[in-house]
Every structure is written in C-alpha cells, then in structure tokens.
C-alpha cells in the first residue's frame, strides 16, 4: 500500500531538488552589484513612499475574519450538494434544512452589516 505513494514522493523530491539546485547555482554564478538603488524593495523605478513595517488598520483583520467565517460556512454546501439527490426522495426536508442553515448565516451577515462592521469609516 505504501508503495502506491512512491511516485508522489519522487515528484516531491524532484521539485524540491530543482528549486534548491537552481537557488544554489544562481548564487554561485550570478554577478553581484550592491548599491542603494539596488537594495530598494522595488528596483523597477518606483520611488518608495514609506517604511515597510507599518500598522494595518484593525479593520483589515475584521474583514478578513468575517470573510473566513462565511467562506468556511459555505464549504458545508458541498457535501450537502453531493447527497442532495439521494435525500430528495424522502421529501423536501433536506432543502429546508439548508434553508435554515443559510438563514442563520444570513442573519449573522445582516447583523454584522447593521452593526457597521463592513463600513470602512
């Protein structure tokens, strides 16, 4: 059984090896010129506007958190969709069950919305 996974292991080793080898080779053979302009984050000509380490507004986290919650909840729809047809023979119960689930989800969404969590300012 374990030998079935052998090709994956081989690919994994090959991929990792390729990346590793190319990094080492560029390091060894590439020319090295260091000056101020070259050390800038974007050396394609755009002037930098400030430091990289800036504080992000907490709102980003809030939005991200909300996105993740709703995104993950949606995942429940997939297994439901898979068994939907089998259960349809027993009536529309399975449909309304998901309606209840989505209603609760929608309630949460409305609640977040009404409380102004989605407003930027």
């Amino acid at each position, binding site marked *: 059984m374990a030998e079935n996974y052998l090709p994956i292991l081989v690919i994994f080793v090959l991929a990792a090896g390729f990346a590793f080898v190319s990094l080492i080779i560029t390091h060894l053979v590439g020319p090295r010129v260091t000056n101020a302009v070259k050390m800038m984050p974007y050396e394609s000509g755009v002037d930098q506007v400030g430091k990289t380490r800036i504080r992000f507004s907490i709102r980003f986290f809030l939005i991200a958190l909300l996105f993740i919650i709703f995104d993950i909840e949606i995942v429940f729809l997939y297994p439901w969709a898979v068994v939907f047809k*089998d*259960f349809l*023979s*027993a*009536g529309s*119960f*399975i449909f309304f069950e998901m309606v209840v689930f989505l209603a*609760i989800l929608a*309630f949460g969404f*409305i*609640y977040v919305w*009404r*409380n102004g969590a989605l407003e930027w300012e």
Partner: protein
Amino acid sequence: MDISQFFTSADLFGIAPEIILTVTALSVLTLEMLHVSRPGIILMVAALGLFLAGALAINTSGDEQILFGGMLVLNRFSVFFDFLYITIGLLTLIFSQGYLEKRGSASRGEYPALILFAIIGMMLMTRANDLVIVFLGLELLSLSLYILVGFLRHDQLSNESGLKYLLLGAFATGFFLFGAALTYGAAGTTNYNGIVTAITNNTILSDTYLFLGIGLLLIGFAFKVALVPFHMWSPDVYQGAPTTVTGFLCTAPKAAGFGALIILFNRAFVDIHYQWQDIFWILSAMTMTIGNISALIQHNVKRMLAFSSVSHAGFLIMGILVLNETSISAVLFYLVVYSVVNLGAFAIVSAAEQEERGLNLKDYRGLAAQHPWLSAAMTIFMLSLAGFPPTAGFVAKFGLFSAAVSQGYIGLVIIAVLNTLISIYYYLRLVVNMYMQKEESTLILSYKMLAIVFVGLIAIMMIILGITPGYLLEIVTEAASTVA
C-alpha cells in the same frame, strides 16, 4: 432514502430547548439591530425564552431518551442540569441589570445573547453521549465566555483577562481534543456506549492510547473547572471580567464541567474509574488546600471569591472520586447551593463596585450600618459558603463528606474539614468588616429593585434549604439515580 435512520421528529423535540434558546438569542440580537435595545425589553425576551426552554426541558423529563442515534441522552440528570443552567442564566441577567452601563459600556443585546449561547453549549455538554458533542458544547460555551470576559472593551483589565482566557482556553481545548482523538484511536469510537463496550469486551487497540486519552481529557476538564495546577488562569480572569460575568463564569461552566465529567467517568470509563482514584484524590486535596490558602491572603473581594471557587472545585472532586449514587446526589446538591450563593454574593459585589473602589475588603467596613438587609444577605451567603449550619451550605458539605467517609476516604475528609476551618477565616473576614469595623462606609450601592428582591429570595432559600433540605434532596437523589 429513509431520513428516519438519521434522525426523527423525536430528536427535534428532544433538542427543543436548545432550538428555543437559539431563536431567543437571535431575537435578542434582532432587537438590538432594530435599536430596541432598552435593557428591560431585552431582559424580558431573554427571560421568556429561558422560561419556555425550561418548560420544554421538563416536558422531556420522563424516561431516558436516546437522540440522534446515540449522540445525546436525555434523562433526569440532564434535565436537572438544564434547569440549573437556566436558573443561573436568569439570575445572571437579572443581576446584570445596569451593571454594564455603570462600568462604561453600552447596554448591548450581545450580552444576553452570549449568555444564552453559553447555556446552549452547557446543555449540550451534559446531554452528550459522545465526545464530539461534548467538544461542540464546550467550544460553544468557551467562545461565548471569551467574549463575555472581555466585554468591557474600554477596560484594560477586562481585555487582558479576555485574552488570557482565550489563550489558555485554546490550550485546554487542545488537551481535550487530543484526548478525544487518542480515545478514538484506542476504542475506535467516540460514543460513550461504544467506548464502554470496547473496554468490557477488551477490544481496545492500544492501552497506552486509552490511558493517555483519559489523562488528557481529564486535564481538559481540569482546566475548565479550574483544578490545581490547572487553575492559574482563574483568579486573573475572574478578577478582570465584569463582575456579573464572573458570577456566571464561576458557577455555570463549573456545573457543566462537573456534570460532563460525571457522565464521562460514569458511562464511558466506568470500569476503569478506580484506576484514576489516586489522581482524583491528589487533585482534590491540592485544589482545596491551595485554593483556600491563596484565598486567605487576598484583599480583593473578587479575587478572594475566585480562589474560594477553586477550593470549592476541590470539594466537588471528592464526589467524583467516590462516584456512587450518594456522592453524585451530594455533588448535585452542592452545585445548586454553591452556584446560587455565589451568584448572590457577586450580585452584591457588583452593586458595591465603583470606578476606583468597592472591590477591597476594606471598602466594606461599616456597610451593615447603611445597608442592614444586604449585609445580612451577604452574611448568609458567606456562612453558606463556609458551610455553617443552619444554612444550605452545611447540608451540602455534610452530604459530600459523609459520602466520602462511607467509602473510607477518611484522610481526604480530614483534609477537607481542615480546609473548611481555614475557609471560615476569610469568609468571616468580610462579615467582620461589614459589621464590626467602626469606620463609616462610603460605598454607594447601585442596584435595581428586582435584583435586590432576588438576592433576598436566595438568602431566604439558603436558610430554608438548610433547615428543610428534604425537597431538594429528593430531586437530586432522583437525578443521580438515573446515572448511577
């Protein structure tokens, strides 16, 4: 395909209290959204939901019912706990009236909603017949509590304790989940009946896994009910949390934790319970002793009550160490008395609390002259916690100790009695401060009439229960007989 093999309408009726509470919590949130956030209305809706849930819970109190293919079990024991949670929730909501505003937080619908969600989680914990359900309930409870603890957003202490609780709670959840996984690995199932069958038929895959699993599950619970040395979070969190939340935090989740622990060890690990008795013994002795000694030197009332609640957990563990019908009914009696008394005490503390002061023992000096009735009630609560006759606390302690003595744990009972003696010192210190110190109290108590009525009712009930404990004893014995 036939749905009834997955679940039937009986299952839905079984979880009707949970459904009702969910709907209530959502309605409370809706009210808040519609800016109908007058505290009175929200409290009324929440109370209505709790009453309805209680009525539905009692409806299912007949014979034992197994729901969702063995995931949930309904019996007198679980109904008893349902009622306990509902009572605690109701009292907390009543005592919270006006508190949050006083502490500078807007009155929000989230507060009752979160308490309702916590109650649902706890109900699941004591109805569970499966480790997964316990975990679900535990998480629902914990997530609600994390927010409740940090509810005062502009208060640094509250924020700190919320974060601490979250981190250590997650830590504990890790233990619990890992324990559940190992148990699953050993027994091949997370269902209690399945586990016990596997143990009796000796089809355990790995004794080490089972052993580790039980240990980790135990530690997960030990975190939740704050047993030494897993109690370190509790004083910090109890002190930082809003006082009314502290009252809720040191009663209901503790009851749920002990309830779930009793079911776990009485149903799933019933045959190997005796192997863990030494651990329970040590946990009990350590918890009550360290909790008491730490409480002794506290000057902050909230912190003192927090440590006292740690020591009470130590007493309660004695009941799980013995684990027969007598001891379980004693634990249930103790939980009722302890919960209600603590809620009452925290209600008075929250009434006395002010921006800068009201939390130190010294602030209570001479309170009796100004508020004789509240001081009398507080005295009854303290005496009850210390286990003085004729309060209900005495009957509760007496029941637990006699259950332990009858199984031969004389040494532990001696430690417990010594601890009770120590505890009298710090409980009475508050009483002495209220009555015997001459200094004028400058505390201005702010409270709602309803809360005071309930504080008085609790105090009277404690005396009545101390004199005639018969009725409650009957109820707890009946509840205990369904699991033992």
